[in-house]
């Protein structure tokens, strides 16, 4: 797991720290570099943070003021947030989103783990091919197969207008999750498993009682990814649930909000921030797992 860099590890001790009596750099040059680096850093942070600030300021403006180019609200309309939350449907969208994200995440993790385990730790002849297939479907744009999938769910299963066409397939493994879990599992030394096998443990037992506790951070990371994926999904609900507002998710409902309720920028921004808030809260609590996950997608291999 050498490559997995945790949040804390990143940024401790600059890599350029001289080890052996380096030529003493000019003090002035060092100060200038310091100023340069920090100016850039502050600029970058402003670029990332200011949008949130502006969205917030607009969200507490009055209807009229939100249609001007004013930056600062003259009257602080906190009631905008109540109005959004009281909008018919907003509560339903919350529930639907939680259902979709919650069940989707659970199904994905449970169904993907054994597959990832087999791909990482079993030796069988078509492992390479299987892995190729996993990666191919990971890269497949979801729109490629959407027409037959829609026909299947709508005409055969009669499940359009619900979120089930999005949730059920997650009980059959998700390529990205399988791939990521496999990358984690590869880092577990096989000796552990062999020892258990000698003791007569079945593979399922090994997976549950030995492997699972060891890869808890990995499970957390993929669960988070999947949760965010469902939370953010716009295309899926648009295709399967657009005809039934009772099945909309926050992401889809947010986009329709403007048309459905003829709201102006202020309420729109309040709704936008309300949709962003939970994701950002989750991040603050699970930052470490998340960053480990992202790191692993790109650095390993």
């Amino acid at each position, binding site marked *: 797991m050498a490559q997995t860099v945790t949040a804390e590890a990143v940024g401790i001790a600059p890599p350029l720290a001289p080890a052996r009596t380096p030529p003493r750099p000019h003090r002035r040059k060092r100060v200038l570099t310091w100023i340069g680096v920090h100016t850039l850093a502050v600029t970058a942070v402003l670029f990332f943070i200011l949008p949130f600030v502006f969205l917030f300021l607009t969200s507490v403006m009055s209807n009229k003021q939100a249609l001007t180019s004013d930056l600062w609200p003259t009257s602080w309309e906190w009631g905008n947030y109540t109005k959004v939350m009281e909008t018919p449907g907003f509560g339903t969208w919350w529930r639907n989103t939680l259902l979709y994200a919650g069940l989707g995440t659970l199904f994905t993790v449970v169904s993907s783990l054994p597959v990832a385990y087999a791909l990482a730790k079993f030796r069988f002849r078509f492992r390479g091919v299987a892995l190729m297939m996993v990666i191919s479907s990971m890269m497949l744009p979801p729109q490629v197969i959407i027409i037959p999938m829609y026909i299947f769910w709508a005409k*055969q299963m009669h499940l359009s207008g619900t979120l089930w066409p999005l949730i059920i397939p997650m009980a059959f493994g998700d390529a990205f999750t399988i791939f990521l879990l496999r990358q984690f599992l590869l880092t577990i030394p096989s000796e552990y498993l062999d020892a258990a096998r000698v003791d007569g443990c079945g593979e399922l037992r090994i997976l549950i009682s030995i492997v699972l506790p060891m890869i808890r951070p990995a499970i957390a990371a993929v669960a988070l990814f999947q949760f965010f994926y469902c939370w953010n999904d716009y295309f899926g609900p648009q295709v399967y649930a657009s*005809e039934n507002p009772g099945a909309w998710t926050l992401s889809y409902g947010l986009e329709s909000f403007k*048309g459905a309720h003829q709201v102006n920028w202020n309420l729109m921004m309040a709704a936008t921030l309300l949709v962003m808030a939970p994701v950002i809260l989750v991040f603050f609590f699970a930052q470490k797992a998340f960053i480990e996950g992202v790191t692993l997608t790109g650095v390993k291999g």
Partner: protein
Amino acid sequence: MHRLPRLRRSITTLACAATLALMASACAGDDGGSGTGAEEAPDKKVTITFWHGWSAESETKAVDDLVAKFTAKHPNIKVKVVSNVTDDKITQGIRSGKGPDVVSSFTTDNVGQFCTSGSWTDLAPWLAKSNIDPATTFPKPVLDYTQFQGKRCALPLLADSYGLYYNKDMFAAAGITQPPKTFTELAETAKKLNQLNGDGTFKVAGFVPTFHAYEFSAAHTLAQFGPTYQTPDGKSNLSKDPVVPQFFNWQKQFVESQGGFDKLEKFRTTFGEEFSAENPFMSGKLAMTMDGEWRTAMLAQDAPNLNYGTAPFPVPDDQQDKYGRSYLTGTTVGIAKSSHHQAAAWEFVKFVTTDTEALVAFSQAIHNVPSTNAALAASPLANDEHFKPFIDAFKHPASNTTPASPNGGKYQVTLSEYAYKWEAGQGGDLTKSLADLDKQIDTDVAQVK
């Protein structure tokens, strides 16, 4: 060593079998609903779903009132109402078989698509059964846009016409006494009404003639010229009708006379939502606008102090004899083929489209033009000073609508997409472009046949 290839083969076989099974069922499973509901007992308790596209608060309430009147008369039929349904959702819902029983759409262009695909039930047998003669019940224009090639799969539920709204206080301040009647007058009047900020941007615009400015769309405006969209054999006629290039050139001149496209578009991005109280005409950002008759109701509710007038929308200078005409459209209502309660659905459709009292009240509530001859005669709206021009436009012989087409409003989309390019100065050679549009529209129609 031989076991694995066999395993692989069996997996392949399994996969193919599954695929074939699914595909076979995919092809066979298209019953698309049934007409069994016709045999239902008339007093059986049923629940039907009604989809409509109204979204403003006052309008959805009026629909609910209309439905309440129906259920008072038919206590055995419960109606579940879903508002703000767009055409995409309608097609999708009906095709998936999980759509509504009764469905309504604002896009009359789509009637052709709904009729030819069979997604909306043919209403002729129902009309005959209920002894309703459409020809004497409904005015001619609404009859035309609710059928396609002789197939009546929709009925009108109120109608819309368009006109000019103008702010009387702003007119007075600029010393203007009469609303403009010709396009030349329109541009001159608009110019006088423009008020600019210190940096040269608009504070108030006399008129915003760009195609994203809400109701000022290509179809609505082109109607003032009386275009012929299709040849008798159904081919696109844009390049052969001289009024089409005339229309495009007029719009370009109009835009330039008001300060140019960029400036107008920038101003447009400050508009509030069309159906909110922050609508630009209602909030005083526009001195004049093209809008439908429904705006009178919203003005009464959300801007009761606005001193405004309505008039027919101006006409081209060489067609002054046609002053009073407008684009006509309306809400169409039909029964989804996939509905399992066709009889109950028909009761509902019959009530909302032909019950005079209900129609008058509904049109009064949302200020739409009544869509039966009886309701039109009985409606007190005809005496409303603001509303009268719209009823007149509705009855005007030169008023017109966009013809239906087998692929719905796609030709309108093609036309308006070109209009957007055109107004931004990227339309290229007009003659050649119109010929290309015709070709594209004909190809698109052939594609769905």
